C-alpha cells in the first residue's frame, strides 16, 4: 500500500469514527437532492416545518432509543403517548383540573406503564417484545373504554408547545425546541454519566454487566420508566400540535419511532448506537416526507420509500460491520 493510500485510509477511518456519520451523510444527500428538485425545500419556514412535523415521533424515539440500547424494544410507546394525551386533556377539559396538574397526572400515568413494562421484563424475565405487545393493547383498550370522543377546547397551557416564535422571518415551534433540548439531555446522560455507561453495558451483555457490578434490574426498570415519561411528554407535544386530545392517535407511532432509531444507526441487538443518530434518523424520515410532498408525490409512495430506506440503511450498517 502506498503512503498516499494509507493517508486516505486514515482520513476515511477518522471520518467514519464520527458518531452517526452515516445517517448524517444520508440526511445531507437527501436534503441536497430535494433542494435541487424544488425551490421551496430550503426555505427557513419549510425546514422549520420539517422539524415541527417530527417533534412528536422524535421525542418518542428518544425513549425508544434508550430501550433499544438495552437490547429491548417498546411497542407500547405510541399508545402510552395517546393515553397520556387523553388523560391530560380530559382531566383539564371534562373535570376542570388545573392544566399543569393534569399534565403531571398524564406523565405519572405514562410512568406507571413504564414501571409495568420494566417490572415484567426484569422480574418475570419476559421478552420486551411480548411485554410491550401486551401493554400496547392494554393502553389502547383503556383509551377506548375511557372515551371515543375527540377532546377539544383545550386550555392554552396545553397548546403552548404548538405555538411559534420568530427568528428573522422564520417561525419556530416551541415544541421543536423542547425536542432538541430533550435530545441534548439524553445525549449528555448517555455519553457523560455513569448511568449512561451502565445502559450500554447492560445492552451489550447483561450477564457480563451484572458481574461487573451493575444493578441490571434497577437500571432496566429506570430506563423503562424514563422512556415512558418521554412518551408522556410526546403526548403533550402531540396535543399541542393538533390542538385536541385524540383517542385515535399513536397507533403506528411504535413503528415510526423504531424506524427513526434504526435509520439513526442504533443496533437492534443493543449496546451500540448514538442518540443523536436517532434525531438524524427522525429528520431523514421528515425530510423525505416533506420533500416528496413538495414534489407532488402521493403520500402512499412516501410510505413506500420510507420502507425502502429502512432496509437500505440497515443493510449498509450490516455490511459495514462485517
Amino acid at each position, binding site marked *: 500500500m502506498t503512503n498516499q493510500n494509507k493517508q486516505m485510509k486514515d482520513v476515511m477511518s477518522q471520518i467514519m469514527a464520527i458518531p452517526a456519520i452515516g445517517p448524517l451523510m444520508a440526511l445531507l444527500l437527501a436534503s441536497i437532492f430535494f433542494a435541487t428538485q424544488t425551490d421551496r425545500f430550503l426555505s427557513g419556514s419549510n425546514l422549520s416545518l420539517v422539524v415541527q412535523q417530527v417533534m412528536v415521533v422524535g421525542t418518542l424515539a428518544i425513549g425508544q432509543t434508550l430501550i433499544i440500547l438495552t437490547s429491548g424494544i417498546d411497542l407500547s410507546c405510541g399508545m402510552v403517548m395517546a393515553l397520556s394525551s387523553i388523560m391530560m386533556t380530559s382531566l383539564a377539559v371534562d373535570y376542570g383540573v388545573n392544566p399543569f396538574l393534569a399534565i403531571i397526572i398524564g406523565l405519572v400515568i405514562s410512568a406507571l406503564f413504564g414501571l409495568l413494562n420494566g417490572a415484567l421484563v426484569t422480574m418475570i424475565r419476559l421478552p420486551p417484545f411480548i411485554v410491550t405487545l401486551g401493554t400496547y393493547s392494554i393502553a389502547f383498550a383503556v383509551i377506548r373504554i375511557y372515551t371515543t370522543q375527540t377532546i377539544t377546547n383545550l386550555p392554552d397551557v396545553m397548546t403552548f408547545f404548538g405555538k411559534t416564535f420568530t427568528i428573522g422571518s422564520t417561525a419556530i415551534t416551541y415544541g421543536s425546541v423542547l425536542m432538541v433540548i430533550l435530545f441534548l439531555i439524553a445525549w449528555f446522560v448517555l455519553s457523560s454519566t455513569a448511568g449512561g455507561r451502565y445502559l450500554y453495558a447492560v445492552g451489550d451483555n447483561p450477564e457480563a454487566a451484572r458481574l*461487573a457490578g451493575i444493578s441490571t434490574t434497577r437500571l432496566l426498570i429506570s430506563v423503562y420508566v424514563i422512556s415512558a415519561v418521554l412518551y408522556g411528554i410526546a403526548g403533550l407535544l402531540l396535543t399541542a400540535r393538533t390542538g385536541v386530545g385524540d383517542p385515535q392517535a399513536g397507533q403506528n407511532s411504535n413503528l415510526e419511532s423504531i424506524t427513526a432509531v434504526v435509520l439513526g444507526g442504533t443496533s437492534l441487538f443493543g449496546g451500540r448506537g448514538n442518540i443523536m443518530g436517532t434525531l438524524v434518523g427522525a429528520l431523514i424520515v421528515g425530510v423525505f416526507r416533506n420533500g416528496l410532498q413538495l414534489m407532488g408525490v402521493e403520500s402512499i409512495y412516501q410510505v413506500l420509500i420510507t420502507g425502502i430506506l429502512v432496509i437500505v440503511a440497515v443493510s449498509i450498517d450490516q455490511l459495514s460491520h462485517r
Partner: protein
Amino acid sequence: MNKTANNPIILEMKGIGKSFPGVIALDGVNLSIREGEVHALLGENGAGKSTLIKILAGAYPKDQGEIIFQGQSVDIKSPYHAQQLGISTIYQEFNLARHLTVPENIFLGHLPQKGLLVDWDTAKARSQEILTRLGVSLQLDVPCDTLSVAEQQLVEIAKALTRETRVLIMDEPSAVLGDKDMEKLFQIVRSLTARGISIIYISHRLSEVFEIADRVTVFKDGRLVGSKDVSDVTMDSLVKMMVGRDLQDIYPKKHAKIGKVLLDIKGLNRPKVLHNISLQVRAGEIVGLAGMRGAGRTELLRAIFGADSYEGTMTLDGKPFNPTSPKDAIDQKVALVTEDRKAEGLLLQQSVKFNTTISGLKEFCTRWIINRQKEVDHVQQMVKKLRIKTPGINNLVVGMSGGNQQKVIIARFLGARVLLLDEPTRGIDVGSKNEIYQVMVDLAEQGLAVLMVSSELPEVLGMSDRVLVMHEGHIAKELSRAEASEESIMKYATGSHLES
C-alpha cells in the same frame, strides 16, 4: 490377563493432528481400538481427549493423519457420516429431543414408516426389543424430559443400537450417575462388548478404569503418553502417566509476606453443588483451587462473589461479608475474573476504556458525571502498567488477543482487596500468561488476597502458596506448597483417596 488382547483391530488412528488458533490440540496421535474391548481414555482437562472423540464423531475435521475403520481408510465428514459408518457418540450433554417420547428419540431421524405415515406400532415394538436386550425397562410413551438422567442415558444408548454401531464413544458417562446407576451402566457396557461392540470410554474417575476397561490410553498436552492393558497398570502408575511433565520456567512466584486473614469462609453450602466449604485466604497469599471440571470450583467463586445464592457465613477483614449481588461484592472490593471472558467478562462492543472503568466508574464521577480527563489518565496508566497492547484506549476490545483482553479485565479490578480468578490464563499464549502471573505476584506483594481456580496443574503448583483440592463439591484436601505435587493433587481431585 486381557481377554480382548487377541481381538482384531476395528479402528485405527494414525498420526492424527488438530490445531485451533494458538493451540495444538492433538499432535501425532496413534491409537487403535480392538473389537469388543472397553478402551478408557484418560487425561487432564484440555489434554486432547475431547478433540479426538469429536474427530471420530465427525464434529471436527482432522488436520493431519489417517483413520482406518474396518480395514478401510475413511474420511469422516459429518456426525451423520460417522453414524452411517457405525461410530456413535454419547456426549455428556445428551442430544435428546426433550419433548418427544422415548421411541421418537430412539428412532430420531429414521422412524419406521408405513407409506407416508409413521409406523408407531413397529417403532414401539422395536424400542421395547432394544431396551429388553439391554436388560432394562422404560415407560415408552412419556416425553424424555420426564425421565431420570440415568434413563435418558439409556435412551441415548438405545439410539446408538438402532444403527449398526460398531464403536460406541461414551464421554464421561458416569459423571451424571449415582452409584446404583453406575452398576447398571457397567452391566450394559459388558453386554455390548459381549456382542462385539467396542466402547471408547472417557472418564475422570480412575477407579472406573479398573472396574470396566480392558485397555487404557493416557493423553497429555495433545499427545498420547501411552496405551496399556489395564492388568499392567496401577492407580499410581496411571497418575504418573497423567501428570509427569516438566514444569516450565514461567512462574515468577516469589514468597510474599503473608498477613492477616482477609477472607474467611465458614460452612458455605449451595444445594447439590457446594458442601460445607470452609477456607481462609490471607493478605499477600495466592491460594490455588484445584479439581476436576464440575467439582464446584467455579460455583464456589461465584457464591463468594454474590453471583449465585448460598448459605453460610463469610467475613472480610473481620467484618461480616454477605454479598447478595456482584455489586455488593465489588462495593466491598471483592472481584471475580470469570473463566469465560467473552460471555461473562467483556463488553465486546465497547472500548478498552469503557471496559476498564465500568466497575469503578464512581471513582471518576462527581455526582454521576464522569470526569473524562481523570478516566483517560487512569486507563492510560493501566495500559502502561499491564502492557496492554492496543492502538488506543478508544479501540474496541473485540479484536484484541485473549491475553490482552484478560489484562483489560484484570485492569478493571486492580483496586480489589480480594481477587477471585477463574482459569485466569485459559486460551492465552505463554508470553501473556507469564505477564499475568507477574501481575498476580505484584498484587499479592501489595497485600491482596488471591483465590485462583485452575485446571492446569503446573499453574496451580507454580503460583500457589497453598492448594485446596475440590472433589464433588467438597474441599477434599488442603496441601501446603511443599506438600502439593501433581500426584497428590490428582489423587484428591479424582477421588481416588476415597477408594483406597
